[in-house]
């Protein structure tokens, strides 16, 4: 018998007992549906985090600060003249945020000399007093530290051009109303005034062009993103009147390392920096907890879906055993007419695969349909604060894996009944009543 005939026959055999096959398919649909949906949620959240990651920084940079010795409950802490209040330091949640010891040029040199460090850049600390547009009400604004390679989710406009000679800034969208802009598009191209206090205590202002408006992110900093020209200009203003010879200080430093060298190399570098009295935090460290919690939840949900699929595969075994029983004489006849045992096995196992294919395709389609309805419903309601988050994402590879995986499970489930059919003796099968 030709392979195409085997498949065709298996297809039509699968539908001989429509109700029975239908119920078995339904069981698989439930499993495949759950598996697709949990994977979809995992993929949706992961891709959102990945895009947010690009907003916070790049994955080959770690933020390095001086380790602050704080022995809890051991009495007064000695004053450190280099201690500064940080408003522009590492993102909130990083240990030591709020108050930290500044890094000097010596620190940067030491960091650069550390084995495994490719490049060091001090984060210039600029503290703004306010931002103002068109002589309106001034509002407080923090500047985010911007690392080359990082991207923020934009509502309008472009990313800042780090190499541009003119100062540029990307404003958070939450400032639009307050500063008197109609919408994000309105803000792009306009000029805002930034004010800061210089070393003499006088308040000075600088003008800058808004090139883009950032979407509020889940994790990314809420500050405005400046380009290098703006930071340099503001920093120059801030240092007016500072005593000559006072060393330049940095709140933190960005250290570039070889991300491709693997996790062990990164950890070793962090250990070396710790030994030298620095605290080094990579992006993965900052997000590790969140992603591992999400991964665990998805894993647990997938576990449940797979249990459902295992139960469904027992349904396949049951269905096919009944089919083999029903078709005992037919199988006997076909074997008498010269059909090989291997082909009999193929007939029944392909029938199992057909049931698996049907169930998984229907399950995946249902999941995609439900996923889209739920995603768009949530995006307009409880997730409207998180633009850019598609809760459920169906990746073709995942969908294909689910379908193929279910077919493989179905095949395995079908082997038992198919073997029984293949081993049938034609004579006793023909006598079977």
């Amino acid at each position, binding site marked *: 018998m030709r392979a195409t005939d085997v498949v065709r026959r298996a297809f039509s055999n699968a539908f001989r007992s429509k109700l029975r096959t239908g119920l078995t398919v339904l069981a698989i649909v439930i499993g495949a549906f759950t598996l697709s949906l949990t994977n979809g949620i995992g993929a949706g959240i992961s891709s959102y985090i990945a895009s947010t990651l690009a907003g916070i920084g790049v994955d080959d940079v770690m933020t390095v600060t001086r380790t602050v010795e704080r022995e809890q409950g051991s009495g007064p802490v000695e004053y450190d003249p280099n201690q500064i209040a940080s408003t522009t330091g590492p993102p909130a949640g990083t240990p030591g945020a709020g108050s930290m010891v500044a890094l000097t040029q010596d620190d940067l040199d030491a960091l650069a000399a550390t084995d495994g460090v490719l490049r060091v850049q001090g984060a210039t600390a600029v503290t703004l007093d306010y931002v103002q547009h068109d002589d309106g009400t001034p509002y407080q604004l923090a500047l985010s530290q911007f690392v080359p390679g990082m991207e923020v989710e934009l509502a309008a406009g472009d990313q800042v051009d780090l190499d541009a000679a003119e100062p540029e800034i990307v404003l958070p969208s939450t400032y639009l109303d307050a500063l008197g802009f109609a919408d994000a598009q309105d803000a792009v191209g306009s000029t805002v005034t930034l004010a800061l206090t210089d070393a003499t205590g006088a308040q000075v202002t600088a003008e800058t062009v808004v090139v883009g408006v950032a979407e509020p992110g889940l994790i990314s900093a809420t500050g405005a993103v400046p380009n290098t020209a703006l930071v340099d200009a503001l920093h120059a203003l801030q240092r007016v009147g500072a005593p000559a010879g006072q060393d330049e200080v940095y709140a933190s430093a960005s250290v570039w390392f070889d991300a491709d060298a693997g996790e062990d190399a990164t950890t070793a570098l962090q250990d070396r920096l710790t030994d030298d009295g620095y605290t080094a935090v990579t992006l993965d460290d900052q997000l590790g907890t969140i992603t591992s919690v999400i991964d665990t939840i998805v894993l647990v949900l997938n576990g449940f879906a797979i249990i459902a699929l295992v139960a469904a595969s027992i349904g396949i075994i049951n269905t096919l055993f009944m089919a083999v029983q029903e078709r005992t004489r037919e199988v006997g006849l076909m074997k008498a007419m010269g059909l090989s045992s291997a*082909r009999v096995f193929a007939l029944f196992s392909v029938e199992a695969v057909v049931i698996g294919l049907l169930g998984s395709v229907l399950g995946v389609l249902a999941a995609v349909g439900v996923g889209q309805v739920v995603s768009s419903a949530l995006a307009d309601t409880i997730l409207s604060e998180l633009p850019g988050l598609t809760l459920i994402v169906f990746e073709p590879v995942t969908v294909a894996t689910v379908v193929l995986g279910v077919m493989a499970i179905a095949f395995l489930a079908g082997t038992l009944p198919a073997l029984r059919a293949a081993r049938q003796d034609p004579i006793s099968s023909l006598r079977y009543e």
Partner: protein
Amino acid sequence: MTSTPLISVRDLRKTYGSGSTAFDALRGIDLDIAEGESLAIVGKSGSGKSTLMHLLALLDRPTSGTITLEGEETSRLGEKSLNRTRNQKFGFVFQQFFLTPSASVLDNVTLPLAIAGVPARERARRGMAALDQLGIADKAGNKANDLSGGQKQRVVISRALINQPRVIFADEPTGNLDSATGSTVEGILFDLNRRHGITLVVVTHDEDLAARCDRSVFVRDGLIVPRHDEEVAA
């Protein structure tokens, strides 16, 4: 009989089970079947006639003894060759029709060709020709279940014919039919035997059917016996 017999059987024995439960179904059968003859294997139920037919049709292997088909000793054939031999050289007509009820008449008839791997188009062509030969071409699209007993047996004969076999094995071919339909079906089988030279091996307990064959052998307790013995026993 001048030429080599089509099927030649020597000292054929078949034992089912082993030890104290062993049952000797055949206890030493010698039989030659010539090409183109019609042979009736007659016996009561339990005589071993069905076992003999199953062995002749290569559906089962004997415990001992030889079956030679066209000069070839069949015990040496592997599973694959046996399957191919049954598919290409034999046709089967059973008392219970063994039709797939939900499949079309044409699909039922062309099953041996599907098993042989013949392309679908040619299957349909040859299937229609076989149905036409038995005068039921108009039923080709019907479900096998919707036919009468006589029509079903015609479908079964078409199926047995479709691969142009050398031998048709018929196991109580008229057992499930009323006498009028039964004699029509008998007529078809003997017509195929005479006009197309297909060897016919009929297993039956029906003396009248046996009488229409060229030759009859009587089986009792696993042995071929002379006719009068059978009558004495009956």
